[in-house]
Structures are given as structure tokens and as C-alpha cells.
């Protein structure tokens, strides 16, 4: 699967607050990188649908560059890497029933 691997510059924060900010920025970037994987055309498994992915990929790449900055020069590169896909939930997809069952789920 194509995905994006972020690489930042070798910045060293002068205090712990800056270190934490750097980590947070990297986590945000990695989250966005997962979206880029979907934007690369992979459908299903929690990734973005193919529709509109070009825009999403562009925005995500820009965001990686932005959030990857920790006070020194930051770089990003897109490489072919293997990342485990994630099984994703859809918030609000299931709720208590509001009527008699129309269909049954179960083993077959």
C-alpha cells in the first residue's frame, strides 16, 4: 500500500514544552499521513474514498510540512511504505432499534 512517511529535521527543543509540542506536531502529521494513504487510491478499510482524494492529498501534504516544523528546517517525503490498515468505526452508525427487525444478522 502506498502511504506517506514523514521525516522532520533534526531539531532539538530547548525545553520539555517544546519537546511535547514537537511530538504533538508529529502525531498530527502521522494522522494526516494516514489520510494520504487513502487519498492515494486505496478504498475501504477506513481510508478516504476515491472521490476528492486529489484535494485531500494536496492539503494533507501541505499540512505535514506545516506541522512537521519544530523550529528548524522540516522536510517531508512520500515513499512507498507498508502501513497496517485500520478497521474504522462510523460514529452513530448503530443505535437501539426503533421498530421490529427487518433483517437478521447472525452466522450462516
Amino acid at each position, binding site marked *: *500500500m502506498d502511504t506517506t512517511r514523514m521525516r522532520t529535521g533534526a531539531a532539538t527543543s530547548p525545553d520539555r514544552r517544546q519537546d511535547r509540542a514537537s511530538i504533538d506536531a508529529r502525531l498530527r502529521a502521522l494522522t494526516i499521513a494516514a489520510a494520504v494513504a487513502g487519498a492515494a487510491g*486505496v478504498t*475501504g*478499510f*477506513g481510508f478516504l474514498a476515491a472521490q476528492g482524494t486529489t484535494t485531500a492529498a494536496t492539503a494533507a501534504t501541505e499540512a505535514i510540512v506545516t506541522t512537521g516544523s519544530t523550529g528548524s528546517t522540516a522536510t517531508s517525503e512520500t515513499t512507498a511504505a*507498508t502501513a*497496517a*490498515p*485500520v*478497521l*474504522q*468505526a*462510523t460514529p*452513530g*452508525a*448503530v*443505535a*437501539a*432499534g*426503533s*421498530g*421490529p*427487525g*427487518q*433483517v*437478521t*444478522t*447472525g*452466522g*450462516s
Partner: protein
Amino acid sequence: MTAEAIWRALGTTVHLLVADGHPAIARDAVEATLARVDATYSRFRPDSELSRLHALPGETVRVSDLLVRAIGDALRAAAATDGLVDPTVGRAVRATGYDADFASVPGRVAMAPGLGRGTVPLATPPGPVVRIESVPGWRAVRLDSAARTIKLPHGVELDLGSTGKALAAELAAGAAAERLGPGAGVLVSLGGDIAVSGRTPPGGWQVAVGEDSSADPLDLDEVVSLASGGMATSSTTIRRWRHDGVDVNHIVDPRTGAPAAGPWRTATVVALTCTEANAAATAAIIRGADAPAWLASLGLPSRLVGVDGSVVRLGGWPGPATGTLRPAVAGRRRLAGARPETTTTLSPATPHPERTAA
């Protein structure tokens, strides 16, 4: 207005619900999709594209978009479940005796051919044993989606029965909704693996939750409303048989090559897609004791039934007290007995009249 149709395909029951659309048009689209699926990746048809692929081990084979999609989804399911839902269990599944359409499998006692890599006791010694096949592992499959090529090493057989059925439900629901156009909603259930597409009816699709997908939904007390995504159930209670004197089921643990034998007999999961829900439900059965923690970490609404019948709900799965109980009016019950092939129109005012066979 909701209409429904029920028939058999792919060795299981197809249940189609159509909201505000022509049911015949939807059924045509579903049937065409399932026929394409069967011709592409059935492991029971010698003329399927998958069977032809199996006949060319070690070769790079150019295949159809649908087979690329099906195998790609299966490999992604393997990656997302730490390899617990592994399409390369084909030989292992066959070794347990499940080597034909399931209708002809129950009660099989004959030895499957070509076995012998090992034996694992599935009962307390000196009880019976079942021969198993080791599982090559999903990483052995070489899939190039862009080039639409696949290379299977020698000895690797794919069984897409898990994610493949869920994918078929997704494709069928999508095809039907597309044919019907805007404003219509479609639910397709293939043996309890449920995909929805198009407009969601007010209040959502009402899904009765049980352990046997052939059960009449009006006979089940627990009902949930599905608004989007997919729902799937994996269970060791239905598709099981005796092989060489041992009770076995169709869910193979790729770590051992033997049928799953953990603390959960049924798992139902809701996820973004039916395929993901299926992968999670199957992995939960195989994963065993830590399945609740794993499902919770993913935030997947899930319902697990233990081998002792106890039920665990997690990840936002609604509690039983808030579900809708079965109708008490006898006249609203469906026809008793086996569910015949039917096409019925259900009016909104009386959502479940007694239906008649078409």
C-alpha cells in the same frame, strides 16, 4: 415504502431491502453482481477466475479488477487483524473437510486428500484428532494492484469466503442503489453480513441480532438500528460439521491451521464497511480472550456471545433494554417455517404484514 426479496445465492441467503425504489430493478442489480462475484472468486467453481489462478502457482498472472479488489481487501484485512483473518487458509479449510459448497459438507467423515503435515488434538487425548494444514501466511501473496497482477507461491490456496462475502454485499448494495438512483435506499444481507447504500430510511434499517442469520427477525428480541456502514457476524455455531470424528467449524485460526476454539462462539461488529466489520468479527472469534479489549481499542460497536451463552456488548453497542421487542400481535408474524423465496412490499404503516410467497 420498503420492499424486500429473499433468495439463495453464493451458498447462502440473500436478503434485499429496498426503500423507496423498485425492488425488481434492485434485485436485478444484486443478482448480476453476485453472479460476477461467483464467477470471479468462488473456490468451489473450477471455472472461476480464482480457481484458474490456483492452477498457476509461481506465475505472475494478470487478473480482473474484481479479483484484485477481492484479494486486496483480504490482504488488508489480514494486515489490520495482525494476520488473524488470513486468505491463505484455503488449504487448511479444505483439510478440515470444507472442500465443497457447504450444503454438501455436513456430516462428512471422509479424509480430505493431500493431508499429512501434522496432527493436532482437538479433544482431550486419547480422543479423536483432525489433520491440519499449516497456513503459508498472507505475506506470501504478491499483489500488484496497479499492474493487476497476482503471484501465488506453490502450495498457497486462497479462501476469500470471509471478506469476500462481505465485499459482495457491499458491491451488490452499491450497484442496486446506483441503479435505483437518488432517493432510494438499499440493504443487502448475505448470510448476515449486511451492507447499506443510498438513502437511509427514517429511523435506520432495523436489524435483529442473533446467532443464526436464517432466523426470522421477528423471533429475535434484540434489534438495533443501522444508519450507515456495515455489520457482520462471525459464528462457530452454524457452519460446523464432524470430520474424522471431530466437531469442526469453518473459522480457521491461521496460527495453528485448526478450527477456532476460543471463548466466543459468535461476534457481531459494526464498522465503516461490511468488509471491515467482517474482518473484525472473524478476528474476534480467533483472537479469543482479549477480543473485547481489542475491539474496544478500535472503537468498534460489538456484541460477543460466549460459548456459555453470555453476551458482552461494547464500543457503544446499544444495551438490550433499549432494543425493540418482537411484536406481540400474531397477525404481524411472518410465515412460519423455512423462509421461501419471496418478494414482498411492506408499507410504512404496517411494517411487517404476514407475507406471501411470490
